[in-house]
Structure formats: C-alpha cells, structure tokens
C-alpha cells in the first residue's frame, strides 16, 4: 500500500496493479480514506502560485555567461581564419619541396679518406703528365721521328 498509493494517485500504475489497488480500496475503508486525504494534499499543494523570476535574473545570468572565459583548444586559433590555415599549409609544403630539391642537386659530401683514395687512383695520370714532362734526361734526347718509335724508345729508357 505504502509504495503504491502515490503512484495510484498519479495514475502511474500498470493496468493490472491499478485494478488490484481498486479492489483493495473498495474492501479497505482505512486505505480508502488515506488515498482520498493524499489526493486532497496533492490538490492543496497545487494551489500555490508559481513564482516568476525577476527581470534582473536573466540579465545577471547573461552577464555571467558573457564573463565566462572562452575555452579554446590548441587548434582553435586557426578556426576563425581558414586563410591563415591555408597559407601556413602552403608555406609548409613549399619548405618541404625546397628541401627535397636541394637534397637531389647537391652532390654527396666526400670524406677526406675518400678524397685521398681518389687521388691515389689518379696518380698514374699525374705520372704520365708531370713526371714525364719534367724528366730532365728525357729533355736532352732528340725529338722522336715517329710517334710509334718515340713510344718504344721511351719504354726502353724507362
């Protein structure tokens, strides 16, 4: 009874529960009186008028809402200006592209060891040129008559 009487008054009981309650109230005068009294209490409560907020209430709420700090995410600064976002994206792309180009054109740097090794490989050329050109004894020789003979003589002298 206790748990159902208010739900009965509010018409919030299921049909089967309501029928059961009707049957009980018909047979129990104490509960019937109690149910009627509760209904009267509910009606009396309904007599109190509603209180309207003062006009200043809305003004104060709006003022406080307006004074609230604006919460923004890290990316929020970009939201109001899509142009800035676009320009920043284009700049980033351009920088990436320039970097890629520079890397493709610039020859790979050579370490000192690699440079020495390269020079050693070319030393025969230097010998062919410098050593032979400045070899004093060879200068005293008469100029070769034929290229082939000159070549053979040179080999023999060496």
């Amino acid at each position: 009874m206790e748990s159902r009487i208010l739900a009965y008054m509010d018409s919030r009981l299921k049909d089967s529960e309501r029928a059961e309650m009707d049957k009980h109230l018909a047979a129990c005068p104490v509960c019937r009186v109690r149910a009627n009294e509760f209904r009267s209490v509910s009606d009396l409560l309904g007599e109190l008028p509603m209180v309207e907020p003062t006009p200043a209430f809305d003004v104060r709420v709006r003022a406080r809402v307006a004074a609230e700090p604006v919460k923004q995410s890290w990316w929020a600064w970009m939201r109001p200006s899509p142009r800035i976002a676009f320009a920043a994206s284009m700049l980033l792309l351009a920088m990436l592209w320039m970097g890629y180009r520079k890397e493709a054109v610039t020859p790979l740097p050579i370490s000192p060891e690699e440079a020495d090794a390269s020079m050693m490989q070319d030393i025969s050329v230097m010998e062919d040129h410098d050593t032979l050109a400045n070899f004093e004894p060879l200068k005293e020789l008469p100029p070769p008559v034929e290229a082939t003979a000159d070549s053979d003589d040179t080999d023999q002298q060496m």
Partner: protein
Amino acid sequence: MTRTDVQLMLDVKGGDEQSFELLLQRYRTPLVNFLFRMVKNREQAEDLAQEVFIRVYRAREEYVPTAKFTTWLFRIATNLALNSLRDHRHQKLEMSIDAPLTDGEDGDERPFEVADKHLTVEQELVEEERKKMIRRAIEKLPEKQRAAVLLHKYQELDYAEIAKILSCSESALKSLLFRAYEMLRVELAPLVARRGLK
C-alpha cells in the same frame, strides 16, 4: 520543430550560444520556483538558480547525454540548495516561524491583488491564510522529503528521475514521498477535512 533539451545542450557544446538562451528561457521559472521552495528566500533562490545555469554552461564541453537533461539540472540545483541550507542552518535556527516574512518570500505570492477582484477582504484574508498554511507545511518537511515532494508535485518528474537526483533507490524514494505526504496530511488536516466535507 521544438528541439529537445539534449539537442539544445549538444548545440551549446558545439558553440551555439542561442541554444543556451533557449534552455535558460525553458527552465528559469521551474528552477527558481524549486529553489525558492527549498531555501524559502527569493533572492537566495535566484542567486542559486544563476549558479545552476553557470555550472551547466561551464560543463558544456564535457556534456555527454547519458541521462535526461532535467535529471542533471535538478541534481545540480538540489545539491546547491542542500549545501546552502546547511551553510545557513545556524541563521535558520534563529529565525522564528512567526517572524514576518521578507519581501522576497512573500511579495511574489500575492496573486490575490490582481487574481480575483470578486473576493471580499475577508475572503482574501482567508485565502491568504490558507496559502500561508500550505507553504509552511512544505517548509516544515525535512530537506530531502521537501525536495522529493517539489520534484514530484511541481516538476512532475518520474520516480526513477527523482531517485537519481536524490541519489537513492526508487523504493527508498517511494517511502520518502509516503512519509512526506503523511506529514503534510497531518499539517494540513484542517484544510484536508474541509475539502472532505465539500
């Protein structure tokens, strides 16, 4: 088409300030009434109602519609009201039940001045006394019972919702409401008996 409370709140979350204004217009009167009946002081009720709306606004970013909007709203309001009553308990104890009511408490409940011009002065006094009796019966209820009755009778929330607001089980709520109505029945016995005779 009227947008639901949840839809409005989700729009507020999305940055639509106008939706917050709609929620304010929708709930300003129920909220101020509920808080006024809880704390018995109009100025304090409006201050608390403001605080409720500000808390709703501040929580917009984290809002997830897991429950009804009214459950959330009145839960904030109930907690604020109960905290406020606890803070002012000493002041309350010093107040006499027969002390003259402040403008804020009584000034807004004089619809008789304009409501029914056909009533005689004597009838008006009787009506005023009757309403005062009802108001005092509500005020005498223990705080949690009072909140339960206000949410049940004036906000017409369902039991499950009120139980969530008051952080109790549905069966505990029904028991709470039953005890509250029992107390009101005793307090309002003369008025109840008069109605029974009609």
